[in-house]
């Protein structure tokens, strides 16, 4: 493999790979909040569907809000996690044009949140722990969504999470967009992937309102403190799940494995806790998210 000018290609490739690796490591160790937002929205990142396929066996999808429609933006159903029956909910963005349109880019309508509420209540009756996977830009802002009570549907979904007599483990896997995310994330344990973001408003939305200039999104992303590290420091989430080098999109298997492990640990920590205690602790946790944690 030696070239006449003395360069050994094999050695050179090894050297370059290690340089690239090092570069990736340094780049990803100091991503700005705006860069993290881009990673969190990466089209190749594992989606809710991937988590369900990989972590849940016997998955039995359940559809509909019993009132208007089935919302494909919210996946829901029963299945087994490590052999144990659970209820699963996830906001699904889709992976190609067709599936993105089908899932409405992960933006749920009222029927999606009403389905979530129905399944959370069902899980409660049959003592199934609830696992949620959150990846959404937010609830769908549309005429029909408003006409059918988008705000009420979100409020009731939050309430259902808070009232559930069973463990609720929420994982922010990509974008945790505002009310549409918290609707499924008011859980006992909230996990967040290392490069996921979780925010009250998108950086673009915030920039266009407060700076009156959407191009200030990177500045807004910084100001909003939307990274997993920030949220953990503010005690608004419970645990960060580390991602493979270069982000979840580079190694789906490793990501799904790490999330599975974190969920398993979270569930075993809550094992045997009675309904009243669970609910009480969950309330106390969220009630403390005011001055007590910030001050």
């Amino acid at each position, binding site marked *: 493999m030696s070239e006449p000018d003395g360069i050994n290609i094999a050695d050179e490739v090894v050297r370059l790979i290690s340089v690239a690796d090092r570069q990736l490591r340094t780049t990803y160790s100091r991503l700005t909040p705006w860069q993290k937002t881009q990673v969190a929205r990466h089209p190749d990142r594992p989606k809710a569907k991937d988590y369900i396929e990989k972590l849940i066996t016997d998955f039995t999808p359940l559809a509909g809000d019993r009132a208007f429609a089935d919302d494909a933006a919210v996946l829901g159903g029963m299945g087994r996690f490590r052999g144990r029956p659970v209820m699963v909910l996830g906001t699904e963005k889709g992976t190609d044009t067709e599936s993105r349109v089908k899932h409405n880019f992960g933006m749920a309508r009222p029927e999606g949140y009403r389905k979530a509420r129905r399944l959370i209540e069902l899980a409660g009756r049959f003592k199934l722990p609830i696992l949620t996977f959150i990846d959404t830009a937010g609830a769908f802002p549309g005429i029909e969504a408003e*006409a059918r009570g988008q705000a009420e549907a979100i*409020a009731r979904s939050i309430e259902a999470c808070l009232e559930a007599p069973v463990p609720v483990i929420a994982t922010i896997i990509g974008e945790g967009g505002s009310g549409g995310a918290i609707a499924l994330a008011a859980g006992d344990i909230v996990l967040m992937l290392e490069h996921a973001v979780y925010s009250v408003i998108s950086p673009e939305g915030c920039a266009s309102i407060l700076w009156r200039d959407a191009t200030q999104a990177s500045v807004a992303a910084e100001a909003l403190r939307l990274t997993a590290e920030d949220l953990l420091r503010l005690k608004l989430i419970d645990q960060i799940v580390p991602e493979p080098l270069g982000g979840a999109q580079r190694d789906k298997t490793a990501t799904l494995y790490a999330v599975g492990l974190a969920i398993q640990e979270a569930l075993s920590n809550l094992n045997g806790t009675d309904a009243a205690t669970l609910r009480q602790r969950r309330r106390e946790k969220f009630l403390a*998210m*005011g001055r007590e944690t910030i001050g």
Partner: protein
Amino acid sequence: MNWLTEYVRPKIRTLFALSSVPDNLWRQCPSCQQMLFHRDLTANLKVCSHCGHHMRADSTERLDWTFDENTYTRIELPRPVADPLRFRDTKRYADRLKDAREKTHTEDAITVAHGTIGGQKAVVAVMEFNFIGGSMGAAVGDAIVAAARLAVLQHVPLIIFTASGGARMQEGAISLMQMPRTVIATRMVKDAGLPFIVVLTDPTTGGVTASFAMLGDIQIAEPGAMIGFAGARVIEQTVREKLPEGFQRAEYLLEHGIIDMVVKRTEMQATLARVIGLLMQQEPKAAA
């Protein structure tokens, strides 16, 4: 300074000074443009006597209109945390807070008081839209939790008058967490067997609508109030359709089954008294 300010203005001033008319005697209705005499307007609870338009009101006016004989006791709220994220957009959040406090004479976007409505005790929280758009941050969350606790302690209904643009962006995800936090507050009131009544006033949107403001046992709105989750502009940009006439107005929500009733401001106190009477009658503890 030029010849206009130095020379002409004093002359105009002297002309006007003759009648010594305060400039706030008349107010134009933003809806029908009619000029309204301030005393009539005050007597009519800031409702236009020509077209029935309900003008926005501040928290003091609301409390005056709601409790019997304008009598109530404000409760001291926990002092808000100044600026948890040291947020700065075109202006520092700390400065926005300071300006808002000076402008509204309230500590944050909400006031809580207790007193009687039609002789029945109640706790009332009123949001202040003039305070950073009535946005909900930790302080508003604190106040709603405090109001709920007080209602439970006194064993009386909780009434919240909403007026808010939504979550307070300057508090980032902390403001988002006020959604579950205030939902818990509503549960505390309901778990104690007490009524939670929401009065939606203009405007109520975003994270406030999508949390405690849609969870009332009874949902009341003022006529014409703008109430919704997403802002009209965002919806227009997303769906690229023209919004229907009256979209997201109180009457639209009534028609779509989202609220119980639209009540005129002049009938609000009587309605609240009636609703409380009916609901508390079924509550054995209240009879004692």
